[in-house]
């Protein structure tokens, strides 16, 4: 496939690991305080475990897994809201597969489906719109989920529904935005980060300018990274080089996909359809100002929150579950008390164990605990 093999070339990966080792060796990193580099995006977390990248890196570098998995940061109450909508007899509830198994306080969407609710897994919001076209007597609700990567696709689907005057289609909008979240992490006293790998596909939409504050105000290096092993290794090397040279810049390693200015058509659709919410609730991170979007008044007829009475329940996470600390990078997944025992991908307690982009599921699937040992 296009540029998959090339960016998985093991000979080049070895060269990069050697470069990283050589660079770190000149940097005088204290033994008890490795450099902390956060990959913001869950897609990176998945690649890092899948390709065993942690095990390739010298001990002076520690990767901190960030909150950029939209399924993982869904609070339990939000799943309950979905189940409540889905259980209405007139509703067909359409969702990406990732969200099906996230536990709610009563049940997951998967369990709701087993109990008779009409929940359908779709690949694209356009597929949800097609279901609405085919079933004019039913109300089709699409669960809009994701950062800026998927935000434009939901917006364009709403614009399409409007142009076709489809009246039985609406979106339960849970789209979230990355910049306020990175800021919240930088302001968090628990965390001492030395640099960031920037989310490649969010940046493909928003460009690299919105990250300028990370370099200018917080003085941290940020390298927007692709998702193949060579992309990630090269980006780590670029972050290290900035630290070594005392620079803090926003750099773009993933230029084959990310134009510096972002995607104008996608941003235009986003600006037309959404406005910022005052605040939005995240699992583990609490409420973050301006971190979510909702539909503008002009699109009220496509807004599930206005079409249905949504209880908007707030439910605390199970006490034993430490998703919050893992999300902020304060503890590693395997340090959570229930990891691999009460919480597994088959029977997840927390959302981080559900999505393949969640740090816990990635650790569990690819044996992250043993990687350091195996590499030595």
């Amino acid at each position, binding site marked *: 496939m296009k540029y998959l093999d*090339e960016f998985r070339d093991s000979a*080049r990966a070895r060269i990069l690991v050697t470069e990283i080792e050589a660079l770190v060796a000149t940097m005088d990193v204290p033994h008890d305080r490795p450099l902390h580099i956060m990959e913001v995006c869950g897609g990176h977390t998945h690649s890092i475990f899948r390709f065993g990248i942690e095990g390739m890196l010298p001990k002076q570098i520690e990767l901190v897994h960030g909150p950029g998995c939209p399924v993982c940061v869904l609070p339990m109450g939000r799943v309950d809201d979905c189940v409540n909508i889905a259980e209405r007899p007139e509703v067909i509830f359409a969702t990406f597969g990732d969200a099906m198994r996230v536990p709610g306080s009563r049940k997951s969407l998967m369990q709701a489906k087993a109990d008779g609710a009409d929940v359908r897994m779709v690949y694209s919001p*356009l597929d949800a719109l097609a279901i609405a076209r085919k079933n004019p007597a039913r109300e089709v609700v699409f669960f809009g989920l994701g950062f800026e990567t998927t935000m434009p*696709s939901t917006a364009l689907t709403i614009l399409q529904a409007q142009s076709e005057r489809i009246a039985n289609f609406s979106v339960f909008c849970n789209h979230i935005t990355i910049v306020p979240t990175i800021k919240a992490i930088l302001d968090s006293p628990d965390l001492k980060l030395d640099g960031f790998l920037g989310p490649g596909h969010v940046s493909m939409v928003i460009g690299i300018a919105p990250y300028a504050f990370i370099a200018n105000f917080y003085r941290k290096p940020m390298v927007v990274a692709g998702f193949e092993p060579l*992309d990630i290794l090269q980006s780590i090397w670029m972050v290290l080089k900035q630290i070594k040279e005392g620079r803090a810049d926003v750099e773009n390693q993933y230029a*084959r996909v990310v134009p510096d200015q972002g995607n104008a058509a996608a941003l235009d659709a986003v600006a037309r359809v959404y406005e910022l919410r005052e605040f939005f609730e995240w699992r583990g991170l609490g409420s973050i100002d301006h971190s979510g979007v909702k539909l503008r008044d002009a699109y009220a007829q496509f807004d599930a929150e206005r079409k249905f009475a949504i209880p908007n329940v707030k439910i605390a996470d199970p006490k034993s579950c430490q998703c919050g600390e893992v999300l902020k990078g304060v503890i590693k997944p395997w340090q959570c008390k229930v990891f691999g025992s009460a919480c597994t991908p088959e029977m997840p307690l927390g959302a981080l164990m559900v999505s393949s*982009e969640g740090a816990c599921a990635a650790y569990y699937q690819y044996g992250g605990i043993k990687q350091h040992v195996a590499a030595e």
Partner: protein
Amino acid sequence: MCLGIPGCIVMIDDAAKMLATVDISGVRRQVNIACIVDEEHPVSSCVGDWVLVHVGFAMSRIDEAEAAETLKILTELGEARAELEAIHLSAAHLGGQPA
């Protein structure tokens, strides 16, 4: 859902609705191409484009020149390292400092 997958546009299905067929590893699927067209790159010129597909939308044209450039930097990095190692190795054999 956030990772996306590369595919090649093989056919324009509906120019007005900006729908095209993409071949993704042998699987064909209709996608929306509104985000990768503009005045300089109209719908009619999209066939043959390699694009990154996210949840049914082509979100970015993969820039072959940029991809080649990134790979070139990686190769040069390796060549420079090999060169330096050769210099140090010879110096060690000769029992002195690199010239």
